[in-house]
């Protein structure tokens, strides 16, 4: 059983592939999604039309999409930073949760202080909490060679359980004592809410701007600094890194911690920008961490591009919220994202190989 496809290794990568491949991937995902919708009795054209309208069609839609995009920009960066150096941290989800826990802690405690001070404290706490939670993964990997995929995933579930405990099953500091029948988080004082900016009449959350700045900083870190140089060599060949006298262990821990810190800031932004409480249920239903992996893959693991891709996927998610109902099933957005991830991964093949049809040789 020889496959009719034949892959031929490319010797060099044409530059055009950089933008061509993502486009082909998105196109293929749309086609596959359409097939699925047709099979389940939906009209794909109407569905896509409505997604575009309610995702990007108006200023309100754009505002909603940016809100949906902000957490994804952080989790997307979180995944991109580690994946591009061959560390598979899929713990963005849990690191985001823990960041939100830390940020809401200071946000609640400092509620009466000047806004700028509270915001700064929330960012720092989100960063510290998210970073520390991720550092656990890094230390286990660097010290014991523990598979980071599984540990980071287990920590996601544990962070979810921690959220449940804090809000539903205890009388913790985060829980609103007034919410007896239906437990909920304690709301942040309005002074601690993060400000929004307006550009061409579209509201932009502070978190989104922070994401852009962070994306640029990380890009600079990877492209232009000694740290970035070393991490790049470690990812390319751990042997060569050791040969050149680089400290592999600390770099692994540092990269994972950095990625977790960024996810943690995302959690802080979630509390400060949008929800203004520690929303245990809402955070777990959102699946930001997993969607972040899709974002990172589509951005081809570039931290800055992840912010851009997050807007696209955020629009899709936002449309999903807006349209949810009997005509637009909740799993559809996730399915489309999954398809996008598949086609993005498969698209990578195009950059490494030429695909040829196998010539059929007649056996004598």
């Amino acid at each position, binding site marked *: 059983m020889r496959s009719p496809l034949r892959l031929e290794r490319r010797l060099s990568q044409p530059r055009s592939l950089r933008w061509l491949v993502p486009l082909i991937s998105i196109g293929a995902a749309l086609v596959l999604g359409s097939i699925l919708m047709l099979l389940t009795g939906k009209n794909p054209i109407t569905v896509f039309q409505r997604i575009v309208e309610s995702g990007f069609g108006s200023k309100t839609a754009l505002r909603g999409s940016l809100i949906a995009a902000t957490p994804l920009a952080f989790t997307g960066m979180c995944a991109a930073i580690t994946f591009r150096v061959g560390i598979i941290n899929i713990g963005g989800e849990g690191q985001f949760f823990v960041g939100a826990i830390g940020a809401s802690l200071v946000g609640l405690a400092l509620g009466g202080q000047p806004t700028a001070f509270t915001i700064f404290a929330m960012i720092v706490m989100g960063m510290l909490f998210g970073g520390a939670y991720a550092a656990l993964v890094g230390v286990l990997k660097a010290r014991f060679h523990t598979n980071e995929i599984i540990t980071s995933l287990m920590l996601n579930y544990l962070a979810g359980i921690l959220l449940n405990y804090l809000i539903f099953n205890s009388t913790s500091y985060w829980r609103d004592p007034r919410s007896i029948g239906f437990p909920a988080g304690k709301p942040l004082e309005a002074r601690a809410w993060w400000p929004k900016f307006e550009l061409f009449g579209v509201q932009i959350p502070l978190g989104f701007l922070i994401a852009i700045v962070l994306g640029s900083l990380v890009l600079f870190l990877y492209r232009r600094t*000694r740290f970035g*140089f070393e991490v*790049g060599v470690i990812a390319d060949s751990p042997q*060569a890194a*050791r*040969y*050149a006298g680089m400290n592999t262990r600390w770099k692994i821990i540092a990269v994972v911690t950095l990625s977790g810190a960024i996810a943690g800031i995302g959690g802080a932004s979630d509390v400060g920008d949008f929800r203004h409480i520690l929303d245990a249920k809402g955070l777990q239903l959102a699946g930001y961490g997993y969607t972040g992996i899709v974002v990172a893959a589509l951005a081809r693991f570039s931290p800055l591009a992840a912010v851009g891709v997050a807007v696209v996927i955020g629009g899709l998610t936002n449309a999903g919220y807006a349209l949810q109902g009997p005509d637009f099933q909740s799993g559809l957005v996730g399915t489309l994202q999954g398809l996008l991830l598949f086609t993005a991964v498969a698209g990578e093949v195009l950059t490494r190989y030429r695909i040829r049809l196998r010539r059929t*040789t007649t056996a*004598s």
Partner: protein
Amino acid sequence: MFEINWGAMNQEVAVRMTGIVKRFPGVVANDGVNFEARVGEVHALLGENGAGKSTLSNVLTGLYRPDEGTTELNGVQVSLASPRDALSAGIGMVHQHFRLVPTFTVAENIVLGEKNKNLLINASEVCARVEQLSTRYGLAVDPRARVWQLSVGEQQRVEILKVLYRGAKVLILDEPTAVLTPQEADTLFATLRAMAKEGRTVIFISHKLEEVMAVSDRVTVLRGGKTVGTVETLSTSTRDLARLMVGRELVFDRVVRVGMSEPSNPVLEVSNISAYDDRGNIAVADVSFVVGRGEIVGVAGVSGNGQRELAEVLGGMRPVIAGGFEVAGIKVTAGKVRQSIKAGVAHIPEDRLHTGLAASHSVEDNLVLKSYRHKPVSKFSVIQRKIIRRHAVELIERYDVKTPDSATPVRLLSGGNVQKVLLAREFSADPRVLVAASPTRGLDVGAIEGVRKRIVEAADRGVGVLIISEDLEELLSMSDRILVMYEGRIIGDVPTVQATREAIGLLMGGIVTANTGISNAGITEPQS
């Protein structure tokens, strides 16, 4: 699938390959190769690295499908689409990098892939059959042993048994002596001759002229993917073969030195070093020696006797259990790469592309792989791209590296140019000591000459050179002194002028005789 009736051996010619063309992206590996091997002969396939020998044998064993050309076995034209086809047609291959499953037993490896009606494996029956076969060919090996426990020589025997078990009529051996001592190689040659006598066809792939002369009946020479010619071994000479192989006259002369070697003025002093290998077994056992200023010291030995580990200790990549070393009289903390770099140790590792270089990184990045930490390459932790590029352009020019530009990933360069990048970086740090592991392995003749020249030049400038090589000719032609490593120990220390191939060969096999012993007394006692 092809069942060749080898019983009806009315044909003189066992294998005939005509006009074989095989293209890979960017290269034509075989460009119309013609090849013919007779029944009952040992036929050598001679050529430099990259001449197309391996490609041709992979076509014959069904791993590659040729783009053009035909293959006939025993007079029948065949189209071999997979190794399975080739095996059932009676072609067996002993690969240079063994195709064995390390965690399996010898017997399991031998019966792997065999067509058999029995669903279950009867271990004892299989072992009995393997034992029978190994006695018949004098290829002693324990069928119950796990392959990873075997020595390299034993593993090779398993490879040969494997193809014999499958009833191969045509055996192809790809560079089989690379892992053997000269004496082990002689035993192998005897086995090959015996198999040819039985009516099998042995195709022997090599780039070493002496062994081709020693074992073959006829020789086909490949150069640049084309057949240069086929000659009777008896009517040719190493000199003629060399000319055919390289396309010009080759001289194997001792290199000419300009500088003086000063053994009494040591730059590297190694005392009583012991170290583990990756599995945690002792690989280097109580090794001591001295390399003088401008001296070239060779380390001979069959691969896997601790040479690689010794080089890694000196490069700082491997910690020691005991002992230590000094460079120019200053003690170096072992197991710290940066200490070794700082002390002035240049290290050319065996695995150039993945240890010595970061393969997917650009030429310019690789040229600063060891100096990126300091000014001027980085300032305040920020990498200075412009300086890196200027540095690269200069070294590319000085070392004549053939690359489209300095941003090209090194993995896209040819083997010779990869080695030039490494040498350029290591020499640009102005080292006191050079430790080079198999610096010319896998390179073509032109590149080999270039690398040797650069190393000798460094020695002329006063660098103390330690060359580790399995190629005895190389050591004999370059070094002032040869150390022989066996099972982690240095069991011989012979000035090159007194050294003979035979004596060093015996030492490589662990045999110390009265007159080969350790001439510079007091280094180590051989293990009994």
